[in-house]
C-alpha cells in the first residue's frame, strides 16, 4: 500500500516509500531527522508545524507526505538563523513556525505592511512572549 514519492527538502532531493497516511511533519521529523519543525497541536491550529511548500506557508501536520510529492519543501533548518533569532523567544517551541510564516510573508509581492502583521501572523500561537518581540523584529523589515 506504500506510495513512492520524491521531493526536495531544503534543496536536497529525497525519494522513498511512505504510508499514504503519513503526514509531511512526520516525514520530516521521523524519516529525515529534521526535528526543527515542531508539533504543537497536530490539528492545524497552532502553526508550530508551518513549513514552506513551493514557497507558500503550509501546515505540515495537515499536509500528507504524498501531497508533497514532486514539490519543494523548506523547513526552519533551510532558512537563515537571523530571520527571527532565538533570543526573541522564551521557550522557543513556536519559533520554527514563526520563521516559516515570516519567510512566506517576506516573499510576498508587494510586501505586506507592518501594521498588517498582527493579523497576518494570527495563525501562529506563541504562549510565552506576548508576541511583541516577534512583531517588532519583523516590522523592521517591512514598509510601515
Amino acid at each position, binding site marked *: 500500500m506504500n506510495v513512492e514519492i520524491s521531493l526536495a527538502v531544503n534543496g536536497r532531493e529525497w525519494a522513498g516509500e511512505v*504510508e499514504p*497516511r*503519513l503526514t509531511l511533519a*512526520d516525514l520530516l*521529523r*521521523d524519516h529525515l*531527522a529534521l*526535528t526543527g519543525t*515542531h*508539533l*504543537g*497541536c*497536530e*490539528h492545524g*491550529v*497552532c502553526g*508550530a508545524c508551518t513549513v514552506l511548500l513551493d514557497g507558500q506557508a503550509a501546515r505540515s501536520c495537515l499536509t500528507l507526505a504524498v501531497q508533497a510529492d514532486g514539490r519543494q519543501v523548506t523547513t526552519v533548518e533551510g532558512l537563515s538563523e537571523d530571520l527571527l533569532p532565538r533570543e526573541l*523567544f*522564551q*521557550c*522557543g*517551541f*513556536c519559533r520554527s513556525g514563526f520563521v516559516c510564516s515570516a519567510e512566506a510573508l517576506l516573499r510576498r509581492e508587494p510586501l505586506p505592511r507592518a501594521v498588517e*502583521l*498582527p*493579523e497576518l*501572523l*494570527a*495563525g*501562529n*500561537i*506563541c*504562549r*510565552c*512572549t*506576548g*508576541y*511583541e*518581540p*516577534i*512583531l517588532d523584529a519583523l516590522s523592521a523589515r517591512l514598509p510601515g
Partner: protein
Amino acid sequence: MPGYLADLRAPGALELAFVRSPFAHALIGKISGPAVTATELGVGDLRLGGHGVAPWPWPALARGEARFVGEAVAVVWAETRAEAEDLAESVEVEFEPLEPEAPRRLFERTIDAGAVDVCFQRAEHVLERTFSCARQTPLPLETRGVLAHFEAGRLTLWSSTQIPHILRRGVAQALELEETAIRVLVPEVGGGFGLKAHVFPEELVAAQLARRLGRPVRWIEDRRENLLASVHAHDNEVLMRAAFGADGRVLAVEADLRCDVGAYSVYPFSASLEPATAASAIFAAYDLQGLRVSARAVTSHRCPVGAYRGVGTNTAVYATERMLDLIAGHLGLDPLEVRRRNALRHLPCTTLGGRELDSGDYLELLRRVESVSGYEALRREQAEARRQGKLFGIGLALFNEHSGTGQSEYRSRGIEEVSGLDACRVRVTAEGRIVIHTSSVEIGQNHAPAYRRLTERMLGLEPGRVDIHEGDTDVCPPGTGAFVSRGAVGVLDAIAGALRLAGKQDLAPGTDVTCSIDPKQVFPSGAHLAVVEVDAVTFVPRLKRYLAVEDCGNVIDQRTVSEQIRGGVAMGAGKVLLEESAYGEDGQPLAATLLDYLVPVAADIPRIEIEHLVSPSPISAQGSKGVGEAGTIGAFGAVANAVADAVAPLGAELLELPYGPQRIFAAIQLATTSKQKKGRRLGG
C-alpha cells in the same frame, strides 16, 4: 542542547498510547485486546496528604472505576506512535456508566482575623456577589512527554518537566526504587506555566514499562490528551461580601471559596494548592479591619486541577478587584480613588490573611499608573467615546503575590512532597571554568544570563568563563525545581551562597561546593491598567492598551523581567477574554481542540507598557523577588475590570469568567429584562 523531548533520538524505543475513558464516571469491566491494565502494571500510589489534606492520589491507570473523561484506563505500545494509536483504538473496554459521586472535601483553609462581625454591623454599606473563575488550562505549546530507559539496574527518565528532583522522588515511591537508581534528565522544555510541575500517571507508566520490557519507552502527548487529561486550573467560585463606608473604605470582607479540584489530588501539590493560595490572597494589598475566609477543595468528575501561573492568587485578585470596582460604582467614586483609600500604607506588615509582606510602596504604584497612563485624560477620552456610543472601558488592579515559597509554608499547607529548598552546586574545572548547577531548570524563563551575570559580578570574572548546567539529577543538587518564581529568590540566594563558598577556596580547580537554601516567601507587587473596547454589535472585547507598573524588588536582568511580565499579561488577558475548559452537564469536556479552547494570537495583544518601581526585598539576599506570575495575576483584575467598565453603561454586571461575547450578551440581556420589569412595576 539535544532539542525538545520529541526531538530526542531514541533508537529502538517503543511508543506508548493510552486507552482513555469516554465517560465521566464508569465501572471498568472486561478489557479485551493487547493492553496492559492497572492490575498488570503493578505501580503503587504516590504519597499525598500531610496535615489537613485528605489523600486521594491520581493512580497511574484507573483501578476499577474511571473518574473523568480522558482518564487513562490501559496502555499499549508499538514501534511507532501511529501504530500504537491504532492498537489503542482496537482495545475494547466494557464500561458501565455510573451516576456522579457526591463531591468529597479534600482540603479546607479558614481565616478568621480581626473584628469581622463588628465591622459588618457598623458598616454603612454591604455588597455581596458571587464571582466565578472559569476552569482553564496552562496550555504550554509543547505538550507533555517522557522517554524512559532501564539499563543495568538504573532508570533514566527524560521528561519535559519543571521538577526533576520531585519527579525522581515520585517515581521512586511508586516503583519502589531507590532515588539514586533513577536519573532524571530535562531536555529543552517548550513552556510549562505550572502544568509541567507535576508527576503524571503517564510518567509512572512509561518508567514501569521500560523496566518491564527492557527497551526504551516513549510517550508523546497529543493536544487532545493535553486538553482533557493533563491538569486544569481554577474552576473556583467565590461568594464575597464586603462591608464599607460611604467614603469607599472597606472595613471587612468575608469570602467563601469553592474550588473544584477535579477527580484526584495532584502530586506533589495535592488539592490544597488553589484554596490555600487563594485564601491568603483575598484583599491582600488592602488595609482591612476584619477578614473571614473559608476555602475548600472538592472533587468532581473532571480533569484534576494543578499548578498554573499564579494559581489561586488569580481567583483572589480577580474577585477582590471586581469587588472594588463594584464598590466604586455603587458609591459613584473613581476606581483609582477607591484603591488609593484602601491600599496598605505601611510596609513591611503582616496582612490579616497572614501574608508577611516584606517591602513595597502601593501608593506609589498607583501614582505611577495614574501619571504614566495619563489617567485623567484617559477618563476624558472614555467620556467622549461613550458619547459616540462606543463601549470603552478602563480597568485597574492592585495586587501582591507570593514568590519563592519555602519549606515551612508548604508544610503548613499540608504539602509534604515539596522540599521547598533551592540549591546550587559550584564546580571549578581543571581548565578553570566555573560550572553552576542548580536545582532549578530552564523552561523558557531564560534565567542563565542572570545567573551568569551574578557569578561574574560576585567573583570579579571576565565574561565567558561561566557555564550553567541544569536539569540532570545526577549532577545537580536536590531541590524544588522551577515554579512559583523561585529563580529570583531561593535559587539566586543559593547561587550566591555557593559562590561565596567557592570563593573561600580561591576557585582552585577541583573546587566543588554546594549551598542549599530554605527561602522565605517574598511579595512582589504591581498596579496594572487595561483599556478595552467592546464591539457594540458583536460584543467582542478587544484589549486596546495595557500598562503594568511592576515592583519585583531589585532587578537582576531587566530584559528577563520585562519578558516575563509581557508574556504573563498576554496569558492573563487570554484567561479573562477567551479561555475556558468547559464541561457539559454530563461531564463531557467541550474544549477538546484548539478550535474550542481559544488562546490569544498576535492580533489580540497590544503593546504592553512596562514601568518598574524598585522596593528591594530585605529578605532575599539579592533584594530581588519573583516576577513570573505577576503579569498574569494583574491581568485577571485589570482586564476583567476594563471589560466590565465598558459594558457598565448598559447596566450589565459581569461576574463569570471568561468575559467573552456570550457572557457579555447574557449580562446585557439580564440588565435589559430587569430594567423592563422594574419599569413595568413602576408604571403599574
